[in-house]
């Protein structure tokens, strides 16, 4: 019973974390503009699971064929790791779509609210997580 309560707790935490909230250490509002949502489709260059925030580097090719590099800030990697994500979860060459919010300073930086993989799976998505957090090394189940 106690273990189930703790597991439920971790699920609740994961749902909050998974929405890409910048929790603790840095304020979302200081860095990102909630009035500037953005969707970026690109190819993963690097996936760095560092603290306090992870960073996905992606190459985004615009309509005119010009490629720009973007830095995508994720929520805290320790929380992501406890959900089953690893440094191998995103590999250079993976195509992903990022839904997030642009940085206030005008740089090619965005905060990820949602990442959609090439096969359509949503990751870092909040309420779509249907099961308890996975044990380390396995990916979480998602709708």
């Amino acid at each position, binding site marked *: 019973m106690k273990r189930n309560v703790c597991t439920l707790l971790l699920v609740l935490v994961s749902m909050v974390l998974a929405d890409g909230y910048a929790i603790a250490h840095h304020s979302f*509002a200081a*860095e990102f503009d909630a009035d500037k949502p953005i969707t970026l489709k690109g190819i993963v260059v690097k996936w760095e699971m560092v*603290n306090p925030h992870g960073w996905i580097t992606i190459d985004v090719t615009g309509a005119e064929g010009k490629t720009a590099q973007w830095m995508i800030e994720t929520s805290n990697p320790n929380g992501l790791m406890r959900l089953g994500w690893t440094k191998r979860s995103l590999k250079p060459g993976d195509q992903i779509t990022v839904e997030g919010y642009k940085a206030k300073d005008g740089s090619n930086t965005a905060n990820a609210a949602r990442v959609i993989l090439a096969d359509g799976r949503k990751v870092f998505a909040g309420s779509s997580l249907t099961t308890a957090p996975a044990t380390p090394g396995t990916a979480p189940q998602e709708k």
Partner: protein
Amino acid sequence: MKFVHAYHSRVLLIAALASSLIANSSGPLSAQAPPARSSVQNASLPRLPGGHPDLQGLWLKSAGGFQGLFIGSLDGTNFAAAGRGRGNGGGGGGTAYEYTPEAEAERLDRLRRGYEDPEARCHLPGVPRALDQPAGLYPVQIIQDEKYVALLHEAMHDVRIVPTDNSPHPRSYWAWDGDSRGRWEADTLVVDVSNFNGRTWLDMAGNFVDENEHVVERFTLVDLDTILYEATVTDPTVFVKPIQMRFTLKRVPAEQQILEYSCLEGERSLQHYTEEDGGKKRRVK
């Protein structure tokens, strides 16, 4: 594991009671009262040899505290910014921060300078901020023996090794986490923390303390999976009356482990802060 604890604790309890009876009958009373009476009431708690409750394990703040309310939201609102100080000590009671007039002005100024929050730049969070992290995020590992209680925090890889040997606070010593000295009052670990260096903030909303901060913490093992944490924070040059904080730490399932949080080595967010929050960049509309 629970049954082993219970068995051992009964054996140790009887041994502790017996030895304390013998000690008291043959010599002067020791400086620390043996936990005789309350240990009879709480015979189900796991205990170390010596009779004190065993606080060891991996623990996670489940709710409450003051930072428990603070989650940066996608629409930019900051719960902590509403009104003066904070109204809710969280899950079980607490009091608002009540600042002196000058300190309140300082707090409002810091609210606009989130860039300067020392925790955002990976400094030690201080006390009680290291434990009062947003709920459910970063656990703390407790390792304990007869001489100390060590708190190893995942957040900022903060460490407090609290001696329980009746030693005094040092002089000419100023630290981010202050200096901690622990003692047992019946089944509660009481930790006195002073010698702060005046550099820590209490949260991201500009709430802060200065070098006159003094904290008395109380850790009580309520049951096998729960520690009740209470802290009284006084700072006469900042607050007009002491702040009471209270929340629970719940035991983390055994298959989880503490992870490394290496802040300084990976911090890259501050460079994007704009002048609105004390940062270096101009805001691009």
